[in-house]
């Protein structure tokens, strides 16, 4: 099929060979799992279990609440040991409400009715089951998948783009999943197409993964609706906006949705999770995690239960050979630093990356911008990062906005390319935060003004009512007096 180009981008060293050739290993069930109630965009799930309660594998632990939310389930059988705060896999290390599960070592599934043939179900029911299984975007977006499917069906998308690009260096979890479980992914895609009522699916894979391409091609050979597209290996080809551009030549309108182009992007891992949910009634309780980096003794991909600690995963991979200079959740381009190894993996964790100082090129320190324009060249969004950062640094939010701050996707291509090692993304994140604060303050001021005006109006109304009442009373009195006078 015809492919289009996307703007900018960079070619970081792939480093996928570290983990790409080892088959997926199942992580032995840790004794304790820490399942955060918030692993997704939107509102936190509400716990439906009590401390001390015995749960089976797959049993509901926390129920989705409100419009945008996702349920969480027990990754194994055991006892609810605690419901309380536990360090989140976030740079801050701030605690999040988390259910701690003590494994009983039995790993017994909750008894369930065998699921019906999904193709006899209505599209809405498919989406509902995907929602019940707690499936969120597995590529790192963490948006509840059922909602995304429902919205896309309303938007009448014609194509489901299945994202197997995996453009982040080091990450190979999607690669391994496609190589080892291609049929299940294809089945998940078929089910998602049914839920979407869309005619086409394109499975997009970067051309640095020839085995995955071959396996996926073989798996969807008899599927008339599906095609495999080899996309060029250039970061960030796997970003939804850029992938849409590659496949259709169209751009997601600013402030709009990807579905405005008629394309919905979902990760291959999500397709696999959909297959598990609809064919086996298995909620999303485990995922493939790439554990890699120069500091890891035996880099490989693990199928790990949600809630397993980073420590558990690293230990299974032989631990760290040297103290990592960087410990990240995710790839080196967009991954978040972890506060330590005592944090759980979540539904959106595609990798644990332990980089050595040499890999992270820590020796260089930021120096002044020489305006070389490499950031402008690298930006896939057509922005001028050097101008934006200059303004963000001086708290000139309007200036940064004028240069497209809100269009920045934080892909890090600019900072990767910068020879002066300026932490551009950090400036943009700071400015985006400041912008949010400002918008909140503006909203608050507006709300205060509205309330004040309402109060003034009310007071005026009361004043007027009082005056009218007083006038009425006076008039009545006068009338009564007049009447009395007349009577006399």
């Amino acid at each position, binding site marked *: *099929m*015809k492919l289009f180009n996307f*703007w900018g981008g960079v070619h970081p060293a792939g480093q996928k060979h570290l983990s790409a050739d080892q088959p997926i290993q199942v992580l032995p069930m840790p004794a304790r799992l820490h399942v955060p109630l918030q692993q997704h965009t939107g509102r936190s799930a509400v716990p439906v279990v009590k401390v001390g309660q015995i749960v089976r594998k797959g049993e509901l632990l926390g129920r989705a609440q409100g419009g945008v939310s996702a349920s969480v389930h027990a990754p194994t059988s055991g006892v609810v040991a605690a419901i309380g705060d536990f360090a989140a896999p976030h740079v801050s290390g701030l605690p999040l409400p988390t259910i701690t599960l003590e494994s009983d070592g039995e790993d017994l599934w909750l008894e369930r009715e065998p699921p019906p043939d999904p193709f006899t179900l209505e599209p809405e029911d498919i989406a509902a089951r995907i929602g019940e299984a707690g499936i969120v975007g597995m590529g790192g977006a963490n948006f509840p998948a059922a909602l995304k499917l429902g919205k896309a069906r309303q938007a009448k998308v*014609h*194509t489901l783009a299945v994202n197997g690009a995996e453009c982040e260096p080091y990450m190979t979890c999607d690669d391994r999943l496609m190589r080892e479980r291609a049929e299940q992914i294809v089945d998940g895609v078929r089910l998602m197409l049914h839920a979407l009522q869309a*005619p*086409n*699916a*394109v499975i997009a894979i970067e051309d640095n993964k020839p085995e995955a391409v071959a396996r996926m091609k073989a798996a969807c050979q008899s*599927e*008339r609706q599906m095609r495999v597209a080899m996309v060029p290996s250039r970061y960030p080809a796997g970003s939804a906006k850029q992938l849409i*551009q590659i496949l*259709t030549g169209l*751009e997601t*309108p*600013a402030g*709009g949705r990807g579905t*405005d*182009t*008629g394309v919905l992007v979902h990760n291959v891992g999500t397709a696999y999770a959909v297959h598990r949910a609809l064919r086996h009634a298995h909620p999303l309780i485990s995922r493939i995690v790439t554990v890699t980096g120069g500091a890891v003794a035996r880099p490989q991909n693990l199928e790990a239960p949600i809630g397993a600690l980073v420590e558990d995963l690293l230990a299974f991979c032989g631990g*760290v050979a040297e*103290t990592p*200079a*960087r*410990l990240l959740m995710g790839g*080196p*381009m967009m*991954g978040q*630093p972890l506060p*330590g190894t005592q944090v759980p993996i979540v539904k959106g964790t595609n990798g644990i*990356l332990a*980089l050595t100082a040499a890999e992270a*090129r820590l020796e*260089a320190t930021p*120096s*002044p911008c*020489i*305006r*070389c*324009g*490499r950031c*402008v060249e690298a*930006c896939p969004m*057509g*922005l*001028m990062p050097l*101008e934006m950062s200059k303004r963000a640094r001086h708290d000139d939010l309007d200036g940064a906005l004028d*240069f*497209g701050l809100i*269009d920045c996707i*934080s892909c*890090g291509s600019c*900072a*990767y390319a910068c*020879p*002066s*090692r300026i932490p551009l*993304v*950090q400036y943009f*994140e700071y400015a985006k935060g400041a912008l949010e604060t400002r918008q909140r303050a503006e909203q608050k001021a507006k709300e205060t003004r509205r309330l004040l005006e309402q109060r003034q109006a009310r007071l005026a109304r009361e004043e007027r009512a009082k005056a009218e009442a007083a006038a009425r009373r006076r008039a009545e009195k006068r009338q009564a007096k007049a009447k009395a006078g007349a009577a006399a």
Partner: protein
Amino acid sequence: MSVHLPSAPHAHASDSVPRIMGLVLLAVAPATLYGIVLFGWPALNLFLVTILTCLLGEAVCLRLAGRAVRPFLLDGSALLTGVLLALSLPPWAPWWIGAIGGFFAIVVGKQVFGGIGQNLFNPAMLARVALLVSFPVEMTLWLEPRPPFSGAAPGFLEGLAITFGGIPDIDAVSGATILGHVRTELGMARELGQILPGHYGAGTAALGWTGGSLGETSDLLILIGGLWLLWRRVFTWHVPVALLATVLVLAAGFNWLNPERFAGPAVHLLSGGLMLGAFFIATDPVTSPTTKLGQLIFGAGCGVLVYVIRTWGGYPEGVAFAVVLMNAATPLIDHYVRPRIYGRTWRGQSRPVPERARRPPAGSGGTE
């Protein structure tokens, strides 16, 4: 385990500012060596004086500003400024031309603006312009090539005497560059058909066996260095190609209109500092626009100014003036010439997807 908590990305390209400066220095080395060989010991003396004063000026300014001296001194930018300035000077200019130029370039051209990355003008060209305006005699002292061991070449001590004491018999050595010669002769109402033969050969001009600034004579070596930098992706083709193409088109056009009055493209492209300017001066990232379109405009603007100054201006050569003038226009170009943002129109509005474009990708499953 203690780890740093910095922000993404955690991978970086291997490029660094010292590396970029180093590559440019390497690329300009052949032309530099050639120039020094061509004009002998005085050229080497001037070259050394110029770069040393640049480094000294940088160190003094950094110290005065209370900034770290070592990292900035070692980033190669002051060295490169010195080299480029030296290359643009008359090879036998006295030492104080190099010294004043070097100090001016670094102090006024660069550090006054705030150091590396902050300067509005290319420091080397700003200094060259200041020198040319202030010391027109010393700055237009051209001589024929006289490589070492040829009869006319000065020895080491003679070279020192020339650089630090002055040229004993200026009239005996000085000549005119081809551009200067053409200007003078045209001023005397002669025609190019009579002026050029005997003075200009495209071959010798390209190889650089001719009078001129220290490092501008060999177009071939400069071209090789420039192409190498293009290949190494130190800069892109936009500025040099726009600059050279503009001069080529203008020269060819006017030459076609009146060949006796306007020199042809070969004379323009292969003379003076054009090649050096196109590949090593106008491509200075700090003082040129950051967008590709902006760079095309900048390059073309330089080209127009070079041609206009050479043809109608008060000086026979105009590369330094052209670059400095276009440097001044760079902030304006960068303000107005921006890339289109993804998902937005050129005016910045959200760009809707046309209804007819909303169709399955060509050749995808369902359409077969």
